[in-house]
């Protein structure tokens, strides 16, 4: 209990201080709300449009979570596959970079044709955007296994499956979690951007809310929606962080205080 409190208060204090500063600056300089709204304006907008924000967040969350889940799954599998043989890594690793460099706008028409507007396409966007960090970090982790332990497994004739689950994956976990930390934020942004290109207004997520609020110059609402997206990212990040801490606390240097 005291432990988790220690983890929570420093960012909370930072958060509050930053916002007070922001409010002050905006008020002092008299910046109009449509340009840069003060935290209080944003808060008011959030309260006014509470219901819409909530459903939008729900839609975006669903896509981000599903996309993130897919990334974890596929990223682990691909990372494992790439690490299994040097020539496989050489032949395919460079191409996984494509995933990152393809602008969603470019593949959006295909996505929409195959999956239609809405959840499926948006989920795939979140997935594509957040996949590579999981692959890269899994691969790096699997490649850094203690060579002595690798020898041990070889000696005891451990098959590839056992070596994977009992040696490589556990050894790669600290790296994998770094990948998941990065992927958590990217999944959210992937979902938001995915909505720009393949969302539907009938299930308006945060991305489309940002766009339509922005078009109507409701800047405080834009910021509120962005804040909701950030909180979503933060929540996902916190979950990843906590699971990482929990799984590594016994043995890995990075989990120690």
């Amino acid at each position, binding site marked *: 209990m005291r432990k988790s409190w220690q983890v929570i208060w420093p960012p909370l204090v930072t958060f509050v201080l930053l916002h007070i500063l922001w409010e002050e600056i905006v008020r002092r300089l008299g910046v109009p709300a449509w340009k840069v709204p003060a935290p209080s304006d944003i808060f008011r907008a959030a309260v006014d449009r509470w219901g819409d924000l909530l459903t939008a967040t729900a839609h975006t969350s669903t896509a981000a979570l599903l996309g993130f889940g897919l990334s974890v799954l596929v990223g682990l599998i691909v990372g494992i596959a790439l690490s299994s043989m040097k020539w496989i890594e050489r032949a395919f690793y460079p191409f996984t970079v494509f995933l990152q460099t393809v602008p969603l706008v470019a593949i959006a028409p295909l996505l929409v044709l195959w999956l239609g507007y809405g959840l499926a396409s948006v989920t795939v966007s979140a997935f594509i955007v957040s996949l590579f960090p999981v692959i890269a970090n899994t691969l790096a982790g699997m490649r850094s296994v*203690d060579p*002595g*332990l690798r*020898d*041990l*497994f*070889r*000696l*005891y*004739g*451990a098959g590839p499956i*056992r070596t994977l689950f*009992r*040696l490589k994956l*556990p*050894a790669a*976990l600290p790296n994998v979690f770094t990948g998941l930390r990065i992927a958590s934020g990217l999944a959210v942004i992937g979902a938001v951007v995915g909505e720009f290109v393949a969302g539907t207004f009938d299930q308006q997520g945060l991305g489309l809310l940002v766009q339509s609020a922005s078009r109507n110059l409701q800047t405080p609402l834009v910021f509120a929606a962005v804040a909701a997206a950030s909180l979503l990212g933060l929540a996902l990040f916190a979950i990843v962080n906590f699971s990482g801490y929990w799984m*590594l606390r*016994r*043995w*890995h240097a990075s989990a120690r205080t």
Partner: protein
Amino acid sequence: MTEPVQIGGGAPAVSLRGITRRFEGGVLTLENLNLSVQAGEFLAILGPSGCGKSTLLRLVAGLDHPNSGEVHVGSREMPSRGGIAYVFQDPHLMPWRNVIDNVALPLELRGESKSRRRESAKAAIEKVGLADASRRYPNQLSGGMKMRVSLARALVTEPELLLMDEPFGSLDELTRQMLDEQLYALWQERRMTVLFVTHTVHEAVFLSSRAIVMSRRPGRIVLNHQSDLPEMRGAWIRTEPVFMQECRVLYKALEWGSA
């Protein structure tokens, strides 16, 4: 090289013919080395630091390959590499597993049931004197304790060929003698083939049925000595004159090989 008398009988369990090992960067570690070990022998390997003892064991285990020469492991008594266990020079424990789960690993890899694994692992841990640390993680153990965990992990499989690289180097003399005696008793009972690297002449003499001494890099065998000690051994034998005599033989060879 004199042919050793056959102890376990049959063909050699390990045979190395004309082995040369040169590492990248041109470090010539072993040169034209010949060695054959009968099934059931307890071979002690001595030699100066860096002469290639660990390299030799790795070659036997198939974890490294010679630049030339042939390594052959297996005989009628010990069919393949299936029954090898290896105590590395460093403990190499899995940091994410506690002592008991580290020790149980080889059984797990063999697919044994959880309850049998636990039992065997517990017994092995008790033997190395770590019963009260069996739930701790490697980062909570002292250096000697880690090494003992690694030892227990090797013994838990009841191997046919046991490769041990200075397994007792980081232990106090009493614990070490106790484990020496246990190991000898185990060998008398099970007659597995053992290749045992050590820096302690006393230990080599106490345990081995044969000892080889290697020269400085590139490692060659400068002595290949069949033990004159009786098979029945106990703590008492350390004070017998024949024991001292054996030690002297090895010391001389070591001095000669290190020159």
